[in-house]
């Protein structure tokens, strides 16, 4: 298993290298000039030319790539063309914000989705089953944008229960240590801030978790239906086990592998693709960070941002694969 993990981690190198070449080529092939965008719609020609020169945009494509890779090997993610700040220092707070939101969204999606799926399978064709599956169908096809705005309107504006934007109360900022607000408020011993952080997570977390929740519910249901029909479940039932033990201990444990796959893929997707949620709820996450960089043609930021997202995606999939063999001892690497 250690050999397997090492092998998988080594495979990261060609994967990330390939990724970097592809992103680098694509962002340089699309039209648009960073110097022009930085200076905006009111730029003069000399200004654009000077800035291009200064930013090294006049150099040949492969020279730029070479410089970038050289810096990367030194552990330097580069400098943003737009803000002139080091990307390594900019990217972590954004990544942490997205990870926190993703974790919350996935916890919500898993708890609700898995249980809804299990109950639906257990009580197949009951009113609960129909209801849950209709909700799941709506959930999958729900436009996040609309859902988010509706949530804000109801829970922030009309009821005033939950905040409409951001990660915490701007009037009472959390002292950043890890940039995970929940963790930071615990470390700082501020239960009030912990509660505030949690409240800020609820709306965006649910908006972001809705689609994965629906997918997980459907996957759990179909996987459970298969397992519940198998012989060993009948044996367990015949032995007189309590239904709850039949369902969760014997049934779900065998049905969990496909669910886990979905969870892994969804988590990876959320880490990079939460742009809509991050925009509506003003969540300063990595999706928005990279998205805005694309609009600004901020090449180093796009490059490094995508690299980090790809890295996270690969790692999450690795963790999922390792979990397989933990859950099902028959799977060996």
């Amino acid at each position, binding site marked *: 298993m250690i050999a397997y993990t090492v092998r998988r981690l080594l495979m990261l190198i060609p994967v990330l290298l390939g990724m970097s070449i592809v992103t680098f080529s694509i962002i340089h092939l699309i*039209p*648009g000039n960073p110097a*022009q*965008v*930085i200076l*905006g*719609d*009111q*730029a*003069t*020609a*000399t*200004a*654009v030319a*000077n800035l291009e020169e*200064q930013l090294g945009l006049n150099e040949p494509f492969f020279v730029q790539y070479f410089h970038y890779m050289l810096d990367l090997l030194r552990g330097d993610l580069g400098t943003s063309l*737009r*803000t*002139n700040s080091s990307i390594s*220092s900019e990217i*972590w*707070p954004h990544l*942490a914000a997205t990870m926190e939101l993703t974790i919350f969204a996935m916890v919500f999606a898993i708890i609700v989705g898995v249980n809804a799926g299990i109950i639906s399978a257990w009580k197949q064709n009951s009113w609960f089953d129909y209801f849950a599956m209709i909700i799941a169908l709506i959930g999958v096809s729900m436009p996040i944008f609309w859902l988010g*705005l509706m949530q*804000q*309107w109801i829970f*922030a*504006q009309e009821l*005033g229960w939950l*905040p*409409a*934007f*951001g*990660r*915490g*109360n*701007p*009037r*009472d*900022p959390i*002292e*950043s*240590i*890890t*940039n*995970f607000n929940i963790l930071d408020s615990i470390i700082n011993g501020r239960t*009030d801030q912990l*509660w*505030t952080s949690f409240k800020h997570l609820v709306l965006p977390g649910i908006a972001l978790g809705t689609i994965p929740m629906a997918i997980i519910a459907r996957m759990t249901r179909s996987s459970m239906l298969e397992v519940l029909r198998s012989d060993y479940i009948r044996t367990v039932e015949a032995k007189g086990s309590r239904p709850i033990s039949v369902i969760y201990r014997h049934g779900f444990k065998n049905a969990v592998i496909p669910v886990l796959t979905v969870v892994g893929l969804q988590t990876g997707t959320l880490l990079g693709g939460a742009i809509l949620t991050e925009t509506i*709820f*003003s969540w*300063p996450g990595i999706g*928005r960070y990279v998205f*805005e960089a694309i*609009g600004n043609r901020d090449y180093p930021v796009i490059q490094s941002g995508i690299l980090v997202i790809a890295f996270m995606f690969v790692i999450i999939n690795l*963790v999922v694969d*390792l*979990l397989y*063999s*933990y859950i099902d001892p028959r799977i060996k690497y």
Partner: protein
Amino acid sequence: MKKSLWLLLLALTLIVVMAACGGNNDPNDGEENVDAANNEDNMDENNGNNENDANDENDGNDDAAAAGDQTLIFARGGDSQSLDFASVTDGESSRITLQIYESLLKFNENSFEVEPSLAHDWDISDDDLTFTFYLEEGVTFHDGTDFNADAVKTNFDRWSDPDSEFAFADDGYAYTTYGNQFGGFKGDDNHIIDEINVIDDHEIEFVLNYPSGAFLQNIAMSYFAMTSPAALEEYGSDINENPVGTGPFKFVSWNKDDRIVLDKNEDYWQPDLPKLDQVIFQVIPDNSARLTALRSGEIDIMDGLNPDDYEMIQEEPGLQPFERETNNIGYLGFNTDKAPFDDPLVRQAMNHAVDKETLISLLYADLAVPAKNILPPAYLGYNDDIEPYEYDPERAQELLEEAGYADGFEFDLWAMPVARPYMPDAERAAEVLQANFADIGLESNIVTMEWATYLEEIETGVQDVFMLGWSGTNGDPDYFLGNLLSTATIPSSNQTFYSNTEVDDLLEQARSVVDEDERAALYEEALAIIHEDAPMINLVHSTPVLAGSDRVQNYVPHLSTSEALTHVELSE
């Protein structure tokens, strides 16, 4: 058992990596423990805030401000690019730096008239070549160092001289606005400033190479404010994240894409100002979400109100709208190099085809006026004698016939992909215009593309007819005319490729005239010629609107897109 151990190890490694990353990456770590908005802290004079914060009893979940709290949250659509005002041009940056920094002069809160700021007085020599500024005494930067004539010289040297030790050219700093407004840089032929002489601590003299009508306007721009030389020394090229000025508010922290926190400058040189204790600039990208946050009381002022919401806000209890006086032009430009748009008759015909009133009521909720000049109405040189091209499809068709296009033609109509103050919804506007052109027998295909691509493509001249606009920054007519319609700026900002030597000459003359009436006459003449040539359809001058809670007092939006919040306070 072995497996779970292995998993645990993996999890632990991940956590350690995360913690390590987090530990050293936030440059503002140490500074973030600042005075949170809080009733008890209010009366507090500066020191000891950090301690208070630690014992803060405020439960923090109630985002609505408590009475008496002088913390203002200003919500906007995007983050600042940099807090070094001179090296960037975006409005979201100057919105912040105007609070932290001050220039020698400033604009009147309702107009572009210059007023004293760090310089309380100034003299102009008879030949209009020497400007002497008398500086306020007893002004200190936020780092405690003195503001004096040497500091002024250091700042101007930084922008004008690429070899200055604070130019940071190798770190990607470029002072393009300086180059644009002062005719280039040190050593350039057209550079306006010849030399800067420090007379004594509080008197400084600018000697110009040639007279410049816009010199004082330029000095008052937020791009030419004073940074503490000691801070430039200390932070070097990190000055963009560590601003130190003389302004009413001091920089506290910046969480990218989230918020910028500023605290009251207790040692501000103007007595009893500023009124607020703290200002927080919060990024809320979505317009509707921002309005929701305002309605739920989480923020105090929001930028970028949709014109459609304006009327509703006026009647809503607890809220008030703000108008920013118009200072822009939204236009439809012709590519005058390309047939049939190289024919002035065609361009005039299309000018007659556009129904601006309908456009304004549909898209701007009447928060705009139809444009007949490229200059906004309040500007020096605005030519009110010009007869606008009336909406008259029949006249348009006659002109088309005269030009030999009785059967019409087909063309591409380029619409911007982004909302701008001068054009809140370009694609809808394009549809209105498309219908207008169809009425006179012209078939147009709406073309749109991503913003960065759009800006690059229209410089190459592939476009037929395109939508764009321009906003003023210093109230000077040359900023509009010189950039949009002079031969020298083809194709960077003059994308109509309009070139008329007569206009060029008039603009060149006007640039070096200091007398206002004389300058105005020159611009009026140029505008009359431009009107006949019709290189663009001047669509509208729009009025950007904002909204705020009714607790906000003395907030006056400035027409230049941003303003200092020195006099603003919260009631109750």
